[in-house]
């Protein structure tokens, strides 16, 4: 076309990014790559091709890791770890800073390579992925520097196995490696098989930064290699990817003591209220669902529009879609690039073609003749009952429904297995800030979407996984409390004869929904004092009692909305009432446990109630310093319903230590009392009854922990399970927890000193809360 022609048509033409340097880097490595283990590349072996999805061309051949490769990588990480941790915060900060600087220096090379390998538009890799990856290393260089002073009680976990997905290859690598290294861990990372090249370039960067051998190891391959890493001798698995694989990892690591963070799928709601800036909300969708071809775990893929503006909004949206440019990812003027692989393209195509509901609009825009592309798609008129409203598509497909009122918006938004992110558009700050806390999500964006920063934690709830990456809240996933190991000792129940110590029978019952109730099974067991006399009978709780307790706990959801001040008062009052009957409890404990520690335990329990009464209105969130004009509020929210198997030892203190932090933070709890000494708990519910605790907030079961552990772990209505039981039920619980990917906190047969400082504190508060980051850009 001549200049004169273009003057008439005003077309954009093409603006291709030069990929010569990226190809040169590949060729320099012989176009064949081995693994990066112990500071060096291994020889390239049998493997698979890495292709450019935009045109199907083979970019390089990669090596499929064998068990021996994975073992070598883990071994090298294991050997390097003590020295890396001993280097100290400042020493590690210098390396992380060097990596950040090198990522900046080679930013264009990384961006082009990422686009070649993944198919995302060069604008995104250049302006979003790579700068954010750099930012994570800068930010965590700072965290390494501050670790010694700010996290004095924490230490590295050890070796971290990290498995990252193909949608943000380098960025996810940075999210995983930067905090791990900062806290003194070493890593074995597996990039996704479709997109391993930037991870291998990153290995070059590690060499250039002079990173000690073995601190970062990168092995390539498919899911089989991922399984090897999960099974390997690592201390932690960090996984980002699909919910199905995340669930398998949860099951595979159950009971192993490996800590786990999972960042999984999503079907994130994008809520548009009738007072929103509709044009801006339409534009936001471009960043929500057409960013990275919609292959984004937190993509705003479920559009919820308030009825009065629905048609107007859809009209504007369709017009905007028709303006999207789809084409060569290396073209600087392209909005939507290539789908990562023909397999993913088929998944998207199949899901959409099976849908028979609603009205579909596909962008009326030129599509490339070849390559792996899918047009931006909108399907309106769907309902929560439609498959596409529930299933993650992981492609450029937006599904839409309407709502009438703010409360209905919340209801529809939360009608999902997932809970990763949510977006709210409204010009009314009252409305937006009312809705944000009500959404089941780890991240909420107000009047914007897909905003990320290293300073703000990212992660989900429900089937979207658990754990946070980024911010102060992300560090707990890569550290543990320094403590001395002490093996858990089972506490056998007392044996005895039938004669009661007190002939007047007091029938202990379960405490469910504020009522004393008989166990559904109708059985009780005899509990004997240390001296063999009959202390009483305790009911044997079973499945249905757990079910009833969960129902009661759900009915008490108003507790989560109460103020910290109110919860503090109730906890103080509970302490006061316990104190009034202190001697009775001390005697009971002495009778059951023997010895004379009862009084001391009662005083410790009262003190513990005071501790959490104190925390109830002081465990504050944070306002993160993210690089926007606005704030990211890290709000601490209750987890929901927590099931806890209380310690067998110190039956009163153990019960209180589980209950108090949970209810102080606004959770409702189902406590399975000390197995050998349950009668302390059944005495305790009388104190609860006189202390203004609303019905259903605290529910107490008795009987063998093993009878209820799996039921609790697999119950979809329980959001977290803790086990401090004297019986090591860790494996059963973690395995069961895979069902709804609930958080679990189990003892792995390690004892805890409940009388000492490790019996209370921030570890408990962290377990009792979810951090929700609410991004609030502002400015008029």
């Amino acid at each position, binding site marked *: *076309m001549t200049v004169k022609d*273009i003057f008439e048509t005003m077309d954009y033409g093409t603006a291709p990014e030069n990929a010569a340097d990226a190809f040169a880097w590949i060729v320099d490595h012989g176009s064949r790559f081995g693994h990066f283990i112990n500071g060096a590349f291994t020889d390239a072996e049998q493997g698979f091709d890495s292709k450019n999805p935009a045109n199907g061309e083979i970019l390089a051949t990669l090596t499929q890791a064998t068990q021996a490769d994975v073992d070598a990588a883990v071994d090298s990480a294991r050997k390097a770890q003590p020295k890396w941790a001993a280097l100290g915060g400042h020493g590690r900060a210098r390396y992380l800073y060097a990596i950040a600087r090198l990522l900046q220096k080679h930013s264009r090379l990384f961006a082009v390579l990422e686009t070649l390998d993944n198919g995302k538009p060069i*604008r995104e890799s250049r302006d979003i992925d790579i700068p954010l990856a750099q930012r994570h290393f800068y930010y965590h260089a700072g965290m390494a520097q501050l670790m010694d002073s700010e996290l004095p009680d924490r230490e590295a976990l050890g070796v971290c196995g990290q498995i990252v997905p193909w949608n943000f290859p380098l960025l996810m690598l940075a999210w995983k490696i930067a905090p791990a290294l900062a806290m003194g861990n070493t890593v074995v990372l597996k990039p996704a098989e479709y997109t391993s090249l930037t991870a291998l370039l990153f290995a070059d960067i590690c060499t250039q930064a002079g990173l000690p051998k073995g601190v970062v190891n990168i092995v390539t391959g498919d899911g089989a290699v991922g399984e090897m890493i999960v099974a390997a001798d690592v201390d932690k698995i960090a996984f980002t990817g699909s919910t199905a694989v995340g669930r398998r990892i949860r099951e595979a690591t159950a009971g192993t003591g490996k800590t786990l963070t999972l960042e999984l799928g999503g079907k994130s709601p994008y809520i548009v209220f009738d007072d929103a800036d509709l044009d*801006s909300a339409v534009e936001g969708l471009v960043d929500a669902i057409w960013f990275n071809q919609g292959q984004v775990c937190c993509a705003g893929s479920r559009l919820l529009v308030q009825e009065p503006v629905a048609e107007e909004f859809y009209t504007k949206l369709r017009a905007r879609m028709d303006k999207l440019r789809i084409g060569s990812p290396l073209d600087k*003027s392209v909005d939507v690039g290539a789908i990562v692989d023909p397999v993913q393209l088929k998944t998207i195509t199949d899901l959409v073609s099976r849908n028979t509901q609603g009205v579909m609009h596909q962008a009326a825009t030129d599509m490339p003749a070849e390559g792996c592309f899918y047009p931006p798609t909108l399907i309106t008129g769907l309902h929560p009952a439609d498959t596409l409203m529930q299933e993650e598509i992981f492609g450029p497909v937006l599904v839409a429904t309407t709502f009438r009122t703010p409360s209905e918006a919340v209801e529809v938004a939360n009608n999902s297995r997932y809970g990763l992110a949510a977006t709210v558009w409204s010009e009314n700050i009252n409305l937006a800030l009312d809705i944000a806390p009500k959404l089941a999500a780890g991240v909420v964006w107000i009047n914007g979407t897909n905003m990320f920063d290293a300073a703000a934690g990212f992660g989900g709830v429900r089937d979207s996984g658990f754990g946070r990456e980024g911010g102060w809240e992300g560090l707990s996933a890569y550290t543990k409390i320094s403590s001395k190991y002490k093996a858990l000792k089972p506490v056998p129940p007392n044996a005895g004869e039938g004669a009661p110590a007190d002939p007047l029978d007091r029938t202990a019952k379960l405490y469910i929904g504020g009522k004393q109730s008989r166990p559904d099974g109708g059985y009780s067991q005899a509990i004997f004092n240390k001296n063999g006399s009959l202390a009483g009978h305790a009911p044997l709780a079973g499945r249905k009692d757990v079910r009833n307790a969960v129902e009661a706990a759900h009915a008490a959801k108003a507790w989560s909305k109460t103020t910290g001040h109110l919860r503090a008062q109730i906890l103080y009052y509970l302490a006061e009432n316990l104190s009034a009957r202190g001697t009775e409890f001390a005697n009971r404990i002495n009778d059951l446990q023997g010895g004379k520690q009862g009084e001391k335990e009662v005083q410790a329990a009262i003190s513990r109630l005071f501790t959490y009464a104190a925390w109830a209105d002081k465990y504050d969130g944070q306002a993160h310093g993210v690089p926007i004009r606005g704030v990211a509020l890290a709000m601490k929210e209750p987890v929901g319903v927590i099931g806890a198997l209380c310690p067998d030892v110190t039956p009163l203190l153990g019960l209180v230590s589980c209950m108090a932090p949970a209810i102080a933070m606004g959770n409702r709890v189902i406590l399975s009392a000390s197995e050998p000494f349950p009668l302390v708990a059944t005495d305790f519910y009388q104190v609860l009854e006189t202390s203004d605790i609303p019905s259903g907030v605290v529910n107490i079961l008795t009987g063998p922990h093993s009878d209820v552990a799996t039921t609790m772990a697999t119950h979809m209505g329980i959001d977290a399970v803790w086990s401090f039981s004297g019986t090591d039920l860790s494996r059963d619980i973690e395995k069961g927890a895979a069902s709804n990917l609930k958080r679990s906190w189990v003892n792995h047969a390690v004892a805890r000193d409940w009388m000492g400082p490790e019996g209370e504190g921030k570890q408990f508060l962290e377990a009792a809360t979810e951090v929700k980051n609410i991004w609030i*850009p502002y400015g008029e």
Partner: protein
Amino acid sequence: MTRSALDIAETQSTQAQLPQVTEPRNPGMVLDLDWVARVQANTSAIERRCASLPARRSVKKAHQAAWLLKAVSCIDLTTLSGDDTEMRVGRLCAKARQPVRAEVLKALDMEGLSTGAVCVYHEMIPAAVRALQGTGIPVAAVSTGFPAGLSPFHLRVQEIKESVAAGAKEIDIVISRRHVLTGDWQQLYDEMKAFREACGDAHVKAILATGELGSLRNVARASLVCMMAGADFIKTSTGKESVNATLPVTLVMIRAIRSYFERTGYRVGYKPAGGISKAKDAITYLALIKEELGDRWLQPDLFRFGASSLLGDIERQLDHHLTGAYAAGYRNPMG
């Protein structure tokens, strides 16, 4: 409701590159205060869109040259100085007739290209009209007590009439910012309507002085009210405010234009003025128009740059396009 047939004939015969008038004029509509009240403009989101746009659209090589020439055709070449003289205006008009060196235009097969208009104060209209005779390039005059717009109302109306009588084909009026700041939309509407009537067949551009309206929401509301009252163009600024044309203001105004078109079927033009001095910025503006309003608005009858130094930078870029060597300003004729 178009300009006189003579104008059209003149335009088409002498300036094939400049389809000056092809749209029916916006007749305006009754003031719809509900619509005005409903308008929202989320500043942060608007700024994000504007920040990402230049990175989303890149125009290179021949396309860049064509786009820059398009920008030239949309320039209201402007002089609004207290020390303007007839000779100085003559020099500007000469530049408007031949905005880019003849050999450059010949090489690009774009001979005959001129700027969109010349924009002057009332006193300079006769000189400009004389200098542009036979070119078809319209003379635009700033009016209504420009730039503050605080002279007596009847004098402001009279100024328009005298400028039209003196030969101005386009009148750039300034609105009373106080009507926006006090929320008196009826007054703003009435004022604009009176200005439009005083213009007769001359096109009226409503200068909102967006830098003085306090918020993007006010910019959106003022844009709508002026269009309802019959503005042919809405324009950002006088060039005399401390903040003039910006991309966020532009986005708000052109989205208002789009809404107005969707509602009424009439296309209103847009003119950013002040602060646009780089060729790269001009391309970003054109891309924003193309994205948000569509190609139809990329013509001088619906889009103008109010600028004085922009043209010089574009000329240098065109030189570079043709020769591959970076240009020096003194080699291009001044305006």
